[in-house]
C-alpha cells in the first residue's frame, strides 16, 4: 500500500476526482463557492436524521476523513444513488485509510430514500483501484492551470456552474 500521509486527500477530493477533475483542481486551490442549493441542504438533513436512528458516531481520522461508524461497519449516507460509482470509491478510500491504521472494516452505502443499502469490501483489486485514484488526484492537483472545461450532466447542479460557464460571446 501507498503511504496515505504522502498523498493527503480528503474524502471529498476522491469524490471530486471521479466527478470532475476541474472541480478537484479548483477546490484544492481554495477556489470555493457557497453551495446554498436545496439539494445540499437536503443531504445535511438526511444525514442528521439517520444519525439519530442508528446511534452512530462520527470519527475524524488524521484530520483527513470523517467517517460514520455504525457499530462494526463504516457507513455513508447519500441522498440518491446517482453518483454510486464515486460514492463507492469514497467509501473504499475510507476503508483504505482505516486499514493503514490496522483496522479492517466493511463499508455500507445507505440510500435511505431509495431504501437501498450496498456493501463495499476492500479487496486487493479495490486497493489497487484506490491507489490509482490517489495518484490521479495528485496529478490533477499539480497541474499549473485548471483542467479544461468539459460539459458534464452534473454541471448544472454544481456550485461552480456560473464560474465555469460564464464567458463572453463576441
Amino acid at each position, binding site marked *: 500500500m501507498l503511504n496515505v500521509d504522502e498523498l493527503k486527500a480528503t474524502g471529498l477530493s476522491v469524490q471530486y476526482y471521479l466527478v470532475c477533475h476541474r472541480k478537484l483542481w479548483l477546490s484544492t486551490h481554495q477556489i470555493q463557492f457557497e453551495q446554498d442549493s436545496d439539494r445540499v441542504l437536503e443531504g445535511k438533513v438526511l444525514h442528521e436524521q439517520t444519525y439519530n436512528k442508528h446511534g452512530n458516531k462520527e470519527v475524524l481520522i488524521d484530520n483527513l476523513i470523517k467517517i460514520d461508524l455504525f457499530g462494526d461497519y463504516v457507513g455513508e449516507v447519500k441522498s440518491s444513488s446517482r453518483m454510486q460509482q464515486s460514492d463507492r470509491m469514497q467509501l473504499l478510500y475510507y476503508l483504505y485509510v482505516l486499514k493503514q491504521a490496522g483496522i479492517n472494516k466493511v463499508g455500507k452505502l445507505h440510500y435511505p430514500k431509495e431504501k437501498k443499502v450496498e456493501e463495499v469490501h476492500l479487496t486487493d483489486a479495490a486497493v489497487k483501484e484506490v491507489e490509482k485514484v490517489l495518484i490521479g488526484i495528485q496529478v490533477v492537483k499539480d497541474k499549473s492551470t485548471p483542467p479544461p472545461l468539459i460539459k458534464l450532466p452534473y454541471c448544472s447542479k454544481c456550485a461552480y456552474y456560473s464560474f465555469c460557464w460564464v464567458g463572453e*460571446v463576441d
Partner: protein
Amino acid sequence: MKDIFIFNNGRLKRTDSTIQFIDADGKKKTIPIVQVENIHLFGEIDMNTSFLNLLTQQGVVLHTYNYYGYYSGSFIPRSKQVSGYIDVRQASHILDPQKRIFIARQFIYGAVHHMLKNIRQHKDGSEVYINTIESVRVNIENAKTIPELMGMEGNIRKIYFQSFNHMIKNEFFHFVKREKRPPKDPINALISFGNSIMYTTVLSELYKTQLNPTMSFLHEPSVKRYSLSLDLAEIFKPLIIDGLIVSLINNRVMKSNHFEYIESEICLLNDEGRKIFLKAYEEKLSKTIKHRTLKRQTSYRFLIRLECYKLIKHIIGDTTYKPLKAWW
C-alpha cells in the same frame, strides 16, 4: 435578498434572527436578517457588538456614508473566501506591466462600450460624440503605460459627459463640467452619489469571491483601500448608474426639489432624492436578462459577480478575460 438603506437617525438592534430599527421617536421596525444582503447607513445610527456579530454570522456587509452621502467605510464580516493561491496569482498580474495593462485595457473597453451604448440611445445629433469617442478608442490598444491609458479614458469620459446635455431634456440638469469634490450642480451630485453606491455594490460582490479587493490593475493599488472595486465599477457605472440618471430625469421622476445646496456651493441630493434614486437602483440591480453562455436568467447584480469570476479565470490561466459588453 435585498439591500437596506437607512436614512433616519436611530438605533439598530439584534433580536434573535431579526434586526430591529428604532428611530429617534421610538418607532420600531423589524427586518428578517436572512433577507438582507447589505445594509447602508446614511443617518446617525447607534449599534453594539452583538448586532455586528449577527451581521458576521449572516454574512451581511454594512456600509456607512457621511452627511453628504459619500461612502465612508464598511463593516465586513470576517471574509470566508480567501485563497493564498489567488492572492499570489493576482499580484503576479500586477507586477508584470504587460499583464497588468492587458487587464486594465479590458476594463476601459467595457466602460467605453457602455458609454457608447448610452449615447446611441439618443439618436439625433449623437454621431459627433460617437465618432470622436471611437477615434480615441482605436488608440487604446497602443497605450503603453497605465497613465497613458488613464489619459485616454479621461478624454473619452469628457466627451461622454458633454453628450449628457444632449441626452437630458431638462435644462435644470445640464452640465457645465464634471466636478467631483464637491459637486456644484444637480447632475454632478447625482453622478457622485450614484458612483458611491456602485462602488459599495461592487465591493460587496468582490467579497463573495477570492479576489483581493486591494489589488487593482487600472487604478493604482494604493489609490483607495479597495481599488479593485474602482476598477470593476468602471464597467458598471455607465451601464447601471448613468442610464438610471438619464431616465430618472427624462421621466421627470427626479426633480429640482430633490436637491439641496450647502452654502450655495455644494449641491447634494436630499433624503427624498436619495430614496428615489436608491429605489430605482435596487430595481435595476434585480432586473434580469438571459445570459448568453450560462443560459440562465441573470440579475444585473450577479453580472458584477460574474465579472469577478472571469477575472479569477484569467489570473489562474483558465480563460482570457473579456469585459462584459451589454448586448441587449
